[in-house]
């Protein structure tokens, strides 16, 4: 019995730092922040509770509302853009292509780069005075316009373009791995039936890749909620509020404007957003694993 207890002690000790991180850092700081969101804290934490006043203020802030709208537009286009382009690239690479591994490296390398680098490169390419716009105009097309980063109606799409460039390779890799796992018999059967190749990809392969693509989409969607670096690097929220995002709103209010109560209210909404986004997905997985157990 003595040695058993000693052994258990080792395990407990080994996991102690992680327990500490999970309970104190993750849960502790989260509740601290949530509590702050119900106070009138500005530069320093205060314990003067004001109920939901900060949340009311938050949802009367034009900047916050613009942030929400922007992140929604960016998120939908970025995730679906990455999924569609990634799937198409994977399907093309799955067709016995020459130089397949070279193509794959080219499509994936942006994923190894940071959002800051991504944002800066595209900011430069889309620079209206010296970038692509100027180049095309000097070729003779004088009215060509590509001013997305300085145009408040288009700036959010510049972020989408840069984001898809960076993230589509991830989806391609995951989709390609899934395609390589599909059984050869299915292909033979479908070909004998005379089904065209593109239909095989859409009607037979796409449904089978569903879970893997959903996981990839989930991963990208989590990234969307945290979107910060790419905006800071590429547009810094402008022009106007046209590329402000919630994570940046929170950072500005935490460290720039010393508005702790409002910032933590925003952060709490962000956490709530994650819970709302993840819960249905997790619930579906839970149902499916239960069903699988029941069937077995």
């Amino acid at each position: 019995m003595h040695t058993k207890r000693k052994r258990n002690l080792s395990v407990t000790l080994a996991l102690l730092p992680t327990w500490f991180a999970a309970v104190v850092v993750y849960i502790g700081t989260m509740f601290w922040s949530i509590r702050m969101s119900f106070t009138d804290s500005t530069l320093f934490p205060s314990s003067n509770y004001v109920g939901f006043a900060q949340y009311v203020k938050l949802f009367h802030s034009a900047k916050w509302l613009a942030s929400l709208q922007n992140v929604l537009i960016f998120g939908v286009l970025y995730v679906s853009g990455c999924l569609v382009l990634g799937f198409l690239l994977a399907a093309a690479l799955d067709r016995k292509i020459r130089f397949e591994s070279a193509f794959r490296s080219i499509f994936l390398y942006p994923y190894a780069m940071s959002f800051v680098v991504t944002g800066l490169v595209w900011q430069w390419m889309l620079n209206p005075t010296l970038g692509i716009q100027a180049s095309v105009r000097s070729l003779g097309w004088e009215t060509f316009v590509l001013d997305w980063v300085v145009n408040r109606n288009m700036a959010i799409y510049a972020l989408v373009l840069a984001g898809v460039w960076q993230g589509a390779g991830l989806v391609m890799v995951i989709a390609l791995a899934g395609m390589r796992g599909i059984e050869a018999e299915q292909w033979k059967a479908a070909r004998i039936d005379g089904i065209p190749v593109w239909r095989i990809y859409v009607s037979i392969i796409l449904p089978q890749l569903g879970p893997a693509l959903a996981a990839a989409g989930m991963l990208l969607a989590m990234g969307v909620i945290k979107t910060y670096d790419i905006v800071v690097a590429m547009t810094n929220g402008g022009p106007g509020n046209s590329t402000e995002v919630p994570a940046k709103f929170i950072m500005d209010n935490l460290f720039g404007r010393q508005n702790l109560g409002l910032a933590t209210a925003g952060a709490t909404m962000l956490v709530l957003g994650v819970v709302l986004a993840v819960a249905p997905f997790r619930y579906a997985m839970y149902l499916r694993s239960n069903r699988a157990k029941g069937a077995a």
Partner: protein
Amino acid sequence: MARPHPNGPKPAQITAGRIGLYAFLFVAALFFLLPLYTMIVTSLKTMDEIRLGHIFALPEAPDFSAWVTAWSGACMGTVCVGIRIGFWNSVAITVPSVALSVFIGAVNGYALSLWRPRGASVLFGLLMAGGLIPYQIFLYPMVRAMANISLYNSLAGIILVHVIFGLPLVTLLFRNYFVSVPEELCKAARVDGAGFWRIFFEIMLPMAVPMIVVVSMLQFTGIWNDFLLGLVFAGRDNLPMTVQLNNIVNTTMGERTYNVNMAATILTAIVPLAVYFLSGRWFVRGITAGAVKG
């Protein structure tokens, strides 16, 4: 049988479809390569040449002075010391953070999957939930806590923060790895009298080398590419390369030196790119493992 090779019949001859397929791939490759090409050619031009507005033109004569300036003379506000400070800061932050978080992740994965102590699933669940939560909710109280223990704005502080926020991913990957290890192996060693740490160091760690490589690479690129945590926790003297790069490019006074900016951008990207190109399939394994199992 699943095969590690392309599907479908072997194409007999060149058809319109095949041409379309290659056309699509080449256009896509062009789209993906264009920013890299632009970065490189811009960094090799003089500002006079850049002002002509031919962003895709090759430099008349490659000029490396922008690289020298980017490395050792580019300005952040009024301080002109180049991005090399940030480079060494990033090295000093990334290397210990990766080593520590991989070690702790391996211990966690091993303990959680092969010893299953009480509360193992609770701890794992907490970590996974924590991995999904946006950092913004942790930041301010973390800053105060770090200040209380005198680690705010210090190298040790930013390393600790990276280790803590890396826990969910590294634990997940190592747990999934050790779950597939036969339990009998661990039991047999226990019968022979080996303890928790001996089994870990002598049996499990050597066995997990492939996973260690994958996780290290994933953590390395992740931490090197981090911007937010470095900005908040590292302090002025330890700012990582990404933060200094952004300062160089976006806070300049006067005319922007695009050639220097692009040289600095390449220098910042080059380390994770080297990891990516040198490691090949390992990197792919890492991101797919992290994505699909997450």
